[in-house]
Structures are given as C-alpha cells and as structure tokens.
C-alpha cells in the first residue's frame, strides 16, 4: 500500500488524514497534490493527521517541509497531529521537530489555530 489521503473540514480548519507510506513517488506526490489543492482553495489552516503513517522517507520529510513553507508563505498555518515514534524520531534527528507545531489530540490542535 502506498498512501491514502482524506481531507475533511472541522470549522475553518482543513484536516488531512494521511495513512500509509509517504515515500518518493506516489506517496510523496499525493501529499504534495493534496496540500497544493488546499492552498489553491485558499485554505489557511491545515492540520496533517499523520497517525496512520507507518513509513516516511527523506522525500516525505521534504514534502512536509515544502508544504509548511508554502502554507506559511501564503499567510497560513500548517500543523502536525499524532506523530508515531518513527516519524517523531525522524523529525527530531533532522532538527525539524521544533519547526513544526506538533499536537497529540485533534481538539487541541484545532483550538490552537
């Protein structure tokens, strides 16, 4: 399985539920397309729910960074939700964990926007 994405609205926050593998190829490009779609629709508050992501490589991390930069530069905010140990460890060793606003519960993440 590559990646499955589901986008839903909770008030004015776009929540993107991501499941599977965010790796070079289908996985990373699907995430890129989903974020681009939200940005094109002028969505300013985006929450990536990574709770079901079981694998991410450096390309996937690159897409998270790219999405963060693009959303931020357009005046919006992109946050992360439900990182498992693997994703958290990767973001920590690449010194990106403190760049993102990371949350462990959705309600709190929504309120933080």
């Amino acid at each position, binding site marked *: 399985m590559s990646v499955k994405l589901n986008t839903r609205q909770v008030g004015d926050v776009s929540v993107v539920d991501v499941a599977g593998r965010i790796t070079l190829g289908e996985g990373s490009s699907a995430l890129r397309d989903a974020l681009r779609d939200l940005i094109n629709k002028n969505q300013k508050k985006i929450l990536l729910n990574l709770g079901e992501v079981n694998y991410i*490589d*450096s390309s996937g991390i690159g897409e998270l960074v790219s999405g963060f930069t693009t959303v931020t530069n357009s005046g919006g905010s992109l946050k992360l939700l439900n990182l498992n140990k693997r994703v958290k460890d990767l973001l920590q060793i690449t010194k990106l964990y403190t760049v993102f606003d990371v949350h462990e519960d959705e309600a709190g993440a929504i309120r933080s926007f």
Partner: protein
Amino acid sequence: MRENKHHVPETVERSLESTLESVDSAEELALGMAERAGFDDEDLMKIGMAVRESMVNAVVHGNKYNAHKKVRFSVSHTPQRLTVRIQDQGEGFEPESLPDPLAPENLMRTSGRGIFLIRSFMDEFAIRRHEQGGMEVTLVKYSGSK
C-alpha cells in the same frame, strides 16, 4: 522464511533497473536477510530506511532513471554484521560537497537529508567513487547493536 539459525554467512547480489520498483526490491532483499540474521524490529526499520535512501540516491541522482544504467546491489551477513553495497553508474560527485542538512541555512530545504539519515541509522557508512565509474556506498549494521 527460513531462519538462518546456524548463522551461515549469506550473500545476495542483484543487478537492478534504475526504477523506484528496484528501491522496493532492494529493501525487501535486505530486510529478508536482516530478519533471518536475527535483527530486531528497531534495527530492521533502520536498515530498511538506510537501504531505501541509498537506492533512491543511486536510481534518482546517480543513474537518473536511465534505463541503460544498472544499480549493483549486494547484501551479505556474517554472525557479526550485515553489509549492503550499492553501486550506480552515474557521473559521480564529491561527497564533501554535500551541504549539511542540519545547518540553520539548510534546515528548510526540501531535499538533501538522505545521506545524513543513512549515517544516523547504520553503524558504518562509506561512500566512494568506484573504479568502474559511478558511486558506491557500503552500509554496515553490527549484530546486536542499538
């Protein structure tokens, strides 16, 4: 899957196409041997990631998806270690020229973290220009390391 209970040294070699499917194949081969060698889940994760990142470098940056270029892949283990070698047929590059992905000015780059992650996950990492052309990386994971 047969367990290598007697730790008989084992080597698998493949000549792979320059495709993303080859990245999956190499990861599968490496993890299969690592599992038979008795590596735990945490080490399997690290080995898998390091092999994937190395293969992506060979396929994408080395061979540039060129159908006429191959990636030489081998994985072997002894009771002491698992060794993976990956060689591409690209133009090669100077590893010293790679920017540090942890430097503040590079932190928000969208690429350039592959080799750093490989070094983080493996016990030994070597990269060199191969005498036959291209780059060769050697990844080593010690048995029982954390």
